[in-house]
């Protein structure tokens, strides 16, 4: 009984909503609330997908976007965690740098687009740069906050059992902040996926952002919707992927208290 109701909840209900949504969409395009050139029908989009699959262009765009997001995001994670740990432990460094970190965190990454193009031209580099700027500072702040929240008793116990230096960092500090880091990774990965689309519209020659901008310029609204659908689906999958990290046995404690 219970399994059946969970099956209904996870698959049947959302599928029903999707069908209703598509029916509504079809109806709106049939009565032409907007002109046909500005509002493709579901069927147009299906044909659009067929064309995209044949040419393979959407696939190439997807790979290009994922590559840039991975590069920018991994770079941000690799640099932000050590800096956050340092700032979390060193009060003087924190006092010196925290206002700057907060400033850049509050600055919309899109404001960097002109400089990104002036400095790095068009292609992978400016987009990677923008994704980095969009995620690095949030991650630094998240790591600082996580370090500040480590109960002091862990450090007492660590001292009792002889953890010092790198072994303290590796065996105590990092596992203690891991649940909060994973949460921050989920949030910032979402931001990175939003930013890549905007960045590629302006600073890209390919990628999903460029693809929908290009579709708009060519008045191919069917392909534009194809791009939107792929962007949404990949965004959800990206989060699902990161949610898996929260299921690791050694971080479960952080979500079950």
């Amino acid at each position: 009984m219970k399994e059946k109701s969970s099956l209904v909840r996870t698959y049947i209900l959302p599928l029903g909503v999707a069908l209703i949504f598509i029916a509504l969409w079809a109806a709106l395009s049939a009565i032409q609330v907007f002109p046909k050139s500005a509002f493709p029908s579901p069927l147009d989009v299906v044909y659009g997908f067929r064309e995209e699959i044949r040419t393979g262009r959407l696939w190439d765009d997807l790979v290009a976007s994922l590559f840039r997001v991975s590069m920018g995001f991994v770079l941000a994670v690799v640099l932000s965690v050590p800096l956050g740990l340092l700032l979390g432990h060193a009060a003087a460094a924190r006092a010196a740098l925290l206002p700057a970190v907060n400033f850049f965190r509050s600055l919309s990454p899109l404001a960097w687009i002109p400089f990104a193009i002036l400095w790095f031209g068009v292609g992978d580099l400016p987009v990677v740069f923008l994704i980095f700027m969009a995620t690095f500072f949030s991650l630094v702040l998240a790591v600082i906050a996580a370090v500040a929240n480590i109960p002091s008793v862990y450090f007492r116990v660590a001292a009792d059992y002889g953890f010092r230096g790198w072994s303290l960092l590796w065996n105590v500090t990092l596992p203690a902040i891991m649940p909060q880091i994973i949460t921050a990774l989920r949030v910032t990965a979402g931001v990175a996926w939003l930013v890549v689309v905007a960045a590629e519209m302006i600073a890209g020659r390919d990628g999903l952002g460029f693809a929908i901008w290009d579709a708009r310029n060519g008045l191919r609204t069917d392909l534009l919707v194809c791009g939107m659908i792929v962007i949404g689906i990949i965004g959800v999958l990206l989060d699902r992927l990161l949610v898996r990290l929260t299921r690791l046995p050694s971080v479960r404690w952080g979500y079950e208290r």
Partner: protein
Amino acid sequence: MSDKPLSLEHVSHSFGASKVFEDLSLEIERGEFVAIVGPSGCGKTTLLNLLSGYLRPTSGVIRREGATRMVYQSDGLFPWLTVRENIALGLRHLKEGKLSEAQLKDLLELIRLEGFSEHYPHQLSGGMRQRVELARALAGEADVLLMDEPFSSLDYQTRLRMRRMLVRVLTERPRTVVFVTHDIEEAAQLADRILVLSERPAHLISELRVQVERPRDPTHPAVVSTVKTILDELGLRESASELAEVK
């Protein structure tokens, strides 16, 4: 090795301008169970921190022989490690710092948590977690256990069970114990000797010995009369005349 693993000689300690102890001297015998009671904030935990070497006294001498292990109030286990891994930490300082299967099995049996070695702390109850803490402290074969209100976060009935378990564990694995508690009954039920501290700056108000063998029931006459004496010392006992007025 002397018979006194821990001793304090004329120890004073202050945090900045606030004096915690003034001229405190005491000796703890090997195998003795000493309880320290006193008003909250009187520096009981500071005393443990001095005994463990975590803090250095402002003046005076502390002598320590052999290893000491601290058992914390609660949540001293690392939540990202399993019960087995947490207990294995207890052996970390030893050269042959590996927890053998046999040792782990013995310790889990001792704390009655067989079958929980792969559980994480958040999957256990508060009492079970404190038992794992105790096992971790015992694993390293340290001579002295310093216990900082180890049962204070538990409910009363669990606390009673934990006291019984501690007594049983100590008969199987004798240790010198310094046990800080705000629970006077607990002190009277467990300790060979009870040190009553005053408010800050703390000094010894009195030193009581309980000569009855453990395990002791909380309603044992010796326990009850010790509780009465401590309440008197702390000025917390309702006087007979006040009780009469209530009637």
